[in-house]
């Protein structure tokens, strides 16, 4: 069996993992940059942390960059790191900051005083779709069922989520209801302080449905604990071909919780091009594929102007919805 042989391999692998930020590997494509410093606006172990460290690992292992360093700077819902990058722009041209959809939402609500336009937008690299989920014993099997139950008795059909009211999970639920022709403000959204707690709430039966990230629900769906009744992608996802999209159920909406990288304002054009080249080259490497598969991420690559257009579009949709919901 495998177990008996792996002692030494494990130690070697552990050593290799510790040396991630060591010298450039021999294999892989040509080196684009010597060094990238990753600024992580949250603590160790979170989604931002995993994205930055995973990307850095793939880039160094593939030999695209020489080395990667990481810095966690939590505070102010990510605002502290953004402020730092803007104030110390000139000394931080070697820095890439990881961020995701909440930068758009928190800038709109004023939690963060700056927004993404104050930074140099480098590229969106990965993403996760959102999903609506119900418990395995629920009579609801599709979005039609959910909407029928909701129309019959709106106050009984509460939708939970792991974010504050006006946060991402709430906005997705509201977007879905709006696209289905309902009043998004009438939906009873029940907030939990983390995705795991919200999932426990769904399984215990205190909420009828859960708005969550697709990747957070897919394992439990495979285990038969929950049913995913709709995903916010344009087409069905390879990892779960049985799960219908919102669009094919007549609900015209899509949503991506993206993650990507930003740099200091006033970044020299050649430096920006180098970052974008490095990230683009990363997708074709087996090292990235390994990191991506390990974390269950979906490649959603938006570079340069595409990224700007994507962010502005998302900001517009979210802003309209938040005004409607009364958060702005």
């Amino acid at each position, binding site marked *: 069996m495998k177990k008996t042989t792996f002692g030494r391999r*494990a130690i070697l*692998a552990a050593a290799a993992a510790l040396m991630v930020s060591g010298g450039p590997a021999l294999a892989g494509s040509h080196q684009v940059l010597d060094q990238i410093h990753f600024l992580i606006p949250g603590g160790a172990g979170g989604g931002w*942390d995993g994205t930055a460290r995973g990307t850095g690992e793939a880039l160094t292992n593939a030999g695209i960059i020489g080395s990667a360093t990481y810095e966690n700077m939590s505070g102010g819902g990510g605002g502290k790191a953004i402020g730092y990058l803007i104030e110390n722009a000139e000394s931080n041209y070697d820095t890439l900051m990881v961020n995701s959809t909440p930068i758009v939402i928190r800038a709109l609500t004023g*939690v963060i005083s700056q927004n993404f336009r104050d930074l140099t937008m480098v590229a969106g690299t990965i993403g996760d779709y959102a999903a609506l989920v119900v418990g395995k014993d629920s009579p609801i099997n599709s979005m039609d069922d959910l909407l029928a139950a909701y129309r019959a008795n709106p106050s009984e059909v509460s939708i939970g989520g792991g974010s504050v009211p006006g946060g991402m999970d709430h906005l997705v639920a509201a977007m879905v209801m709006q696209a289905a022709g309902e009043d998004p403000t009438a939906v009873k959204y029940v907030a*939990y302080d983390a995705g795991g707690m919200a999932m426990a709430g769904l399984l215990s039966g205190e909420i009828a449905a859960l708005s969550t990230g697709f990747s957070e629900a897919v394992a439990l769906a495979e*285990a038969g604990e929950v049913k995913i009744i709709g995903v916010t992608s344009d087409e069905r996802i390879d990892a779960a071909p049985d799960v219908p999209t919102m669009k094919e159920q007549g609900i015209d909406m899509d949503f991506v919780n993206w993650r990507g990288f930003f740099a200091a304002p006033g970044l020299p054009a050649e430096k920006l091009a180098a970052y974008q080249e490095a990230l683009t080259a990363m997708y074709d490497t087996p090292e990235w594929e390994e990191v991506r598969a*390990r974390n269950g991420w979906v490649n959603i690559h938006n570079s340069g102007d595409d990224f700007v257009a994507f962010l502005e579009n998302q900001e517009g949709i979210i802003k309209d919805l938040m005004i409607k919901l009364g958060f702005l």
Partner: protein
Amino acid sequence: MLEGLIEGLVTAFTFTNILMVIGGVLIGTFIGMLPGLGPMSIIAIMIPVAISIGDPSTALILLAGVYYGAIFGGSTSSILINAPGVASTVATSFDGYPLARQGKAGKALTVAAVSSFAGGTIGAVLLMIFAPMLATVALLFHSTEYFALMVVGLSAIAAFAGTGQVSKAIMMTILGLMLGTVGEAALFPAPRFTFGVQDLQSGLSFITLAMAMFALPEAIYLVLDPNRSKTGSGGTSEIKDLRITKAEAKEIAPVVGRQSLQGFFIGVLPGAGATIASFLGYAVERNIARKEDRDKFGKGALKGLAAPESANNAACTGSFVPLLTLGIPGSGTTAILLGALIALNVSPGPRLMVDNPNIFWSVIISMYLGNLVLLILNLPLIPYIAKILAVPRNYLIPFILFFTMMGAYIGQNNATELLLLVGLGVAATILRFANFPLAPALIGFILGRMLEDNFARSMQLYDGIGFVWERPMTTGLLFLAIVLVILPSWRARLARIRARGIADGD
């Protein structure tokens, strides 16, 4: 089941896995001793190593070892320097630190080690026998019951409302609850009491407040105490002594047994966890103790140390029930463990026992081994660890201050935490000199946020306060809380009346 158990035994007792258990608990204990590095951050640090191992059983055995090793180690700083590094060891300091001040640091550490061992081991037995059945129990609690459970937990403050201290204890609890509302709450999108300070947006961090409320005032008190002795901080001869007398063992044995059970079941609930378990354990044991024992709580009672220590370790083991059988993380720490499992292509949930029985069982079996290793490892080290207190105070106090500062800084990498620490620490020291008990403030802070979240959620789900009487279990728990608060004073009153009656009657 038996087949899986045997396969688990075989997996757990391979050379690599035994090595992983030992390595994991060692890393966990030693890093866990440093305030500021709780199980969550240590596990986060270890994840890349675990993932590179590749084999899910081995990886989980390593991480689980780190987890309960860290809980084990966390009690050391609570006892020795009154610096609880994680919320679940706050209750440990209530009686652990007074014991250390009395020069019984060795004994306190031994009681903590033995109670932790018992809690962890009993927890592992319960996990093995009942895990599949408990999956449904974990889901019995709705937000309304969590709210009621937090209220029961708050009744632990009664322990600090000793003679003439009732109003002070209540004031400090309210202060703690208020501090808990700083920042953004889960249910309200607007930041509260941040005064525009960006670093307050996500609230005060537990570690900063714990250091400011407990460790810092104690260190300053050691310097400023007008009655302080000129020599060290206690009788040095006894510090290293770790003997527990037979009578003492007999005294704490039932406490450890009860709290291991109670702690385990509280740990099973995804929204409660080791912190609630330790507070409840402390509150319950204090209330069922005899009058003369009860008065010792908070002043260095062995029972008051054994209760939270067995409860928090049993609860850690209990938290593996929802993680392994349902795939739901009940705490930040188990959420990180879940992430690691998924990264290793294992999906925890009801199918785990069927699809990967060797992972499920080997982890549980490794827990016995891990707890044993912790005990064997820690007992001989206690005299040396306890000796820290024999260090002359002009070296000891800077040492404590250094660890306090480091604890507040290290988790967040944020220098503002240091300013907050000093500001809050000065305020807490003034309160300490004015004889205000600080523990209720910290309990209020820890429970306050969960209390508010669950209360607001219940109000929303039930369209009002009706859940208090509509859900029998909620009503029962709230009734229990009232009993826990009223009973001690009622009994005291009864005793007074009776004493007077006898005096008058003659």
